């Protein structure tokens, strides 16, 4: 970014480019507010971001090197009479913890050993045959330090030009594959790095309910035009040691081979009867949903599907909640496909960026690698009058929206720290190979032995999040222990690590990452020890959908502008009246927009061309 100064006055300044912040930015710009949207990071979307494989490695290194904290500069010289300063925290380092990386593939492609077996064969091999490769790391405790050391090494490089890709020969975050003889491996680590640009690995794992508030908002605001979507093609569940497909749509029920015809009828009847609330339902409101399901004489199969995969609740969830969640699932079904879910092509990180783009189109100004270091508060009114950015410029504003992580812990309402456990795997085959290799699956793993229920999303290359021949698997649950403790048992049950010659034909894990992320669901936008016109946006929550962030954004917007509509449809370009050549606030906006656009979508352009058929467009509906 050019070193020139920013305008010194805005209506709304927003720090952090997570989903809620970006939606607020779009909503404010859309109704004519002057918005400055900054993020200290070099990338958009904060903990909602998607990374290429290489960028993810850089991110890992940054997290591990986080110890060097920024020096707090004294800005008191900019304070005027009757004002005081609130310093913001330099980074949100606390949100990610327990990060561990494992690599199960050899570094080199196999040319040396089997010259014929080059990369061209990558798709030919049978899926189940994982490489007999010792995991590069098994002892998490020891390896962590090792990693940290290595990461520090690579840090200099990473600290350089952020937007650029790390080079392929950059030190790996994990120990290089050790001595043991690789037998046959289709995809090597080198290849993962070489083709790393074709990965889009999300930090959060969520899906979009097709009648959820995010999809509604995307349609309503026309932001959907900036993205493409894929249907999640099937819902799977892990049961009795194997993966089964959950029949949820009419077509699935019809085609299901596991259900008897009587079960089919019972399931369909139950689903149909759920749609409307009846007196019978109300009678069960205060009792567990499981009890209600038992009463319906559905049998074990259907009960499992309904509880774990359709309602996605636990055994002690109340009927009222269970039914509401079942209804939500059913309402979403069939709007765009045979499951209730959509997934954005190129990953979830696209979504906050789409809103940023909308904000930029309506004049929002964007700066990455740019932060707000402190707030200037008017002592009398306890309102934030201005902010001081990381370059020491004083920028006055009427409202300030900030990502939770930038607010010092001393100023926040103490909430019990809840964490999410996450795992990201790159695998070589689907957990349930089907007719098509391009399935996008949600796998529900019910809770066992005190371990929480795990949501697993398996993305195929059709979502443009991984390279052909691989699948990208995201696991998420509420933390009980560390991410590794919570999720590795599930991973070991369902996948083979490359060390074992797998007899059950489970997919092999090529590479995986575990980490914990702060659960944003506990953070409130207000009530903190902050000026009344400062609003806090939480990071991602653990739910599968996006309701939390969208609701939060809407409530913040309504506090800033109680009279205005939240994200009204953007007008068609031909209906916009442009003022003459004379400079007007609009045209300044337009100029800045260019910048915003490139920042947000530089890579997007390129992606568009790679785009393949069959994206779901949100527009043509009903």
């Amino acid at each position, binding site marked *: 970014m050019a070193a020139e100064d920013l305008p010194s006055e805005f209506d709304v300044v927003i720090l952090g480019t997570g989903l809620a912040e970006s939606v607020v930015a779009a909503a404010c710009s859309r109704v004519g507010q002057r918005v400055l949207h900054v993020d200290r990071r070099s990338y958009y979307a904060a903990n909602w971001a998607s990374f290429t494989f290489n960028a993810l490695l850089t991110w890992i290194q940054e997290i591990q090197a986080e110890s060097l904290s920024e020096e707090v500069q004294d800005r008191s010289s900019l304070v005027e009479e009757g004002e005081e300063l609130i310093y913001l925290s330099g980074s949100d380092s606390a949100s990610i913890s327990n990060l561990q990386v494992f690599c199960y593939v050899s570094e080199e492609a196999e040319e040396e050993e089997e010259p014929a077996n080059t990369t061209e064969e990558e798709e030919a091999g049978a899926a189940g045959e994982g490489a007999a490769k010792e995991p590069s790391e098994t002892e998490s405790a020891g390896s962590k330090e090792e990693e940290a050391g290595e990461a520090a090494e690579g840090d200099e490089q990473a600290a350089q030009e952020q937007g650029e890709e790390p080079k392929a020969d950059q030190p790996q975050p994990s120990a290089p594959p050790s001595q043991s003889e690789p037998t046959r491996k289709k995809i090597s680590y080198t290849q993962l790095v070489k083709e790393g640009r074709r990965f889009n690995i999300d930090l959060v794992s969520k899906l979009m309910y097709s009648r959820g508030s995010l999809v509604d908002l995307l349609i309503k605001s026309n932001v959907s035009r900036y993205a493409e979507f894929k249907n999640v093609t099937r819902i799977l569940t892990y049961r009795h040691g194997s993966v089964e497909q959950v029949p949820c749509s*009419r*077509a699935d*029920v019809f085609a299901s081979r596991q259900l008897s015809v*009587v079960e089919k009828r019972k399931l369909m009847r139950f689903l149909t009867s759920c749609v409307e609330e009846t007196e019978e339902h109300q009678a069960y409101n205060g009792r567990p949903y499981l009890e209600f399901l038992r009463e319906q004489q559905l049998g074990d199969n259907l009960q499992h599907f309904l509880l774990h995969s359709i309602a996605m609740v636990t055994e002690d969830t109340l009927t009222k909640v269970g039914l509401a969640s079942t209804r939500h699932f059913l309402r979403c079904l069939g709007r765009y496909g045979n499951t209730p879910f959509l997934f954005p092509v190129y990953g979830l990180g696209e979504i906050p960026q789409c809103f940023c783009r909308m904000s930029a189109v*309506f004049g929002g100004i964007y700066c990455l690698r740019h932060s707000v270091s402190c707030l200037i508060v008017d002592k009398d009114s306890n309102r934030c009058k201005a902010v001081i950015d990381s370059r020491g410029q004083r920028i006055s504003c009427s409202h300030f929206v900030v990502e939770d992580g930038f607010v010092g812990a001393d100023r926040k309402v103490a909430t019990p720290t809840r964490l999410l456990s996450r795992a990201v795997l790159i695998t070589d085959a689907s957990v349930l190979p089907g007719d098509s290799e391009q399935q996008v699956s949600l796998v529900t793993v019910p809770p066992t032995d005190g371990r929480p229920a795990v949501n697993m999303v398996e993305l195929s290359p059709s979502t443009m999040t991984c390279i052909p021949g691989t699948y990208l698997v995201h696991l998420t649950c509420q933390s009980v222990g560390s991410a590794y403790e919570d999720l590795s048992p599930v991973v070991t049950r369902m996948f083979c690590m490359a060390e074992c010659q797998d007899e059950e034909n489970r997919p092999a894990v090529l590479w995986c990452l575990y980490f914990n992320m702060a659960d944003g669901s506990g953070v409130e936008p207000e009530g903190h020890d902050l000026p009344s016109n400062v609003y806090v946006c939480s990071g991602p929550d653990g739910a599968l959908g996006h309701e939390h962030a969208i609701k939060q954004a809407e409530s913040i917007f309504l506090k800033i502008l109680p009279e205005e509509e939240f994200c009204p449809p953007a007008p068609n370009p031909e209906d*916009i*009246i442009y003022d003459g050549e004379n400079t007007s606030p609009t045209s300044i906006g337009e100029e800045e927009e260019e910048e915003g656009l490139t920042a947000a979508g530089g890579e997007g352009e390129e992606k568009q061309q790679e785009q393949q058929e069959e994206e779901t467009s949100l527009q043509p509906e009903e």
Partner: protein
Amino acid sequence: MHGRVKIKTTAQQEEEKRKEREKKLKIYVAARDACFSKRNEGIWDDEALQLTQQLLSSNPDFATLWNYRREILLHLETVKDKDEVQKIYEAELSFTESCLKVNPKSYGSWHHRGWVSARLPRPDWARELTLCDRCLSLDDRNFHCWDYRRMVVKMSGVPVDQELAFTDRLIGSNFSNYSSWHYRSTLLPLLHPESPEPPSPCREPPQSSPPPSPQTHSHRVCEEQLLKEYELVQNAFFTDPNDQSAWFYYRWLLGRAEREEMISCVYVNREEERVAVAFSRPVNAQSVGLFLVLDGQPQRVEWRSVHPCFKHSPVWICSLPPGTISDITNERNLTVHWTEKHTHRDCALYTGRTESWCRDSATDQELFRSELSVEKTSVLQSELQSVKQLQELEPLNKWCLLTIILLMRALDPLGYEQEMLAHFRTLKEVDSMRSAYYSDLCSKFMIENTILKMEYAEVRVFSISDKNLTTLCHLDQLLLVTHINLSSNHLQRLPPQFAMLQCLEVLEADNNAIENLEGVYHLPKLEEVLLKNNKISTLADLQPLASCPKLKRLDLRGNPVTQTANVESELAELLPSVTDLLL
């Protein structure tokens, strides 16, 4: 507020749109007029192609322009070489494709595409198939596309098994699709034809007729495949019992037996010197080559149907020349030949007998059952079990109830009679909009049962009183009946088919709602007509009775007609043969 994007107001937009539309209309009309005048002048040039293309891309349903376009193309074919023609037609294909995007159900575009594809020197059928599949994936019920696809499949010779897999796919994604199910029903007999052995050994071959023609069972499918289809369709109707497409397919699976075409009965009456012939299906005896041979001598007779309103009828009669068979001491041998079907039936009129007939044993239950199925009883029984299972879960589903009734009829019509009636009662309650249909269907089944009972008893009396009949059917089966009792039903008329009861002597039809006697027509032996408490209101309604020469007794009590002035004298004039009139 400053900085807000300014948007045109609605009125401004409206006005702009209106102007836009006006401009478009002007261009359109001008182009249309230009096209018409060029066509009138017989000009077939590229410019005309351009013009029609412009117009059709905005309005692909302009049939005249498509015709003009074809005229031009036919002309170009004669003047261009093959490669150029290929190019022109390929351009046509991409043009129709863009028209289909405007209106995927445009008759004109699809037809034009078919026409072009057929004329294309080097057609690319694979491409066309892909196009169809794409269209069907957007709208799996676009019947234009289905039509076009059938043509493409035929022209390109797509293997039947691939097509069956195609229907599997479409049904898998949405089984509420008549087109797919129907397509299956045409493919299965080709792919899995029934083995030549007839599958129902219980069905006796008819005694005096030749073996069934090979096409009799051509729509049938081998049993192994049938069982798979039953499973598939059960999955559909258990998943959604209210979807009728699956039920219709199921009915097709269960019932594909066709009645054999034959002469089912020959009846001869010495006194009236009359022959009546019944066929297994309605025919036009005047055109199918029907001949009567008496003692080896071909007879010149004139066949007439039982009622002038029938051109096709299952019963035909003829009069023999006076005196040919009237001598009671002679034995006569008749043969009726149906030359078109290479079949015939003999009938001997023995000495001393006044009438005689020859026919198959009508006790054969298959007579009615064949409408539904010739499957093995065990298969039907297990089908009945599964549909009953569904009915337990969905006691009020009409398709389920109806199918149970049909299966019961196929299995044992008399044994299941009470259950059938109960199911009909439920049906009329749950689907009251179609209660009249169910009443008629129930009447039909009750008549079938009564005919079976009558045949078992080997009598010529047909009695079906107090059974809620709303309609009469299968009357061709009652050719030999002398006494019919239809009392206490809900009949409103005796339809023309009633005239097939050629041997009828006594008609009892008290306590109905009969207002029309059309079918009581030229019944040569009819003596007694009892119509107490019906709705006959005018003398004209009684007119048909005048054609029955032997009518002696007529009961009209409780009919509105009795209130007519001078009814007695009028009746005496209309029906002079009646001696016993009850008013």
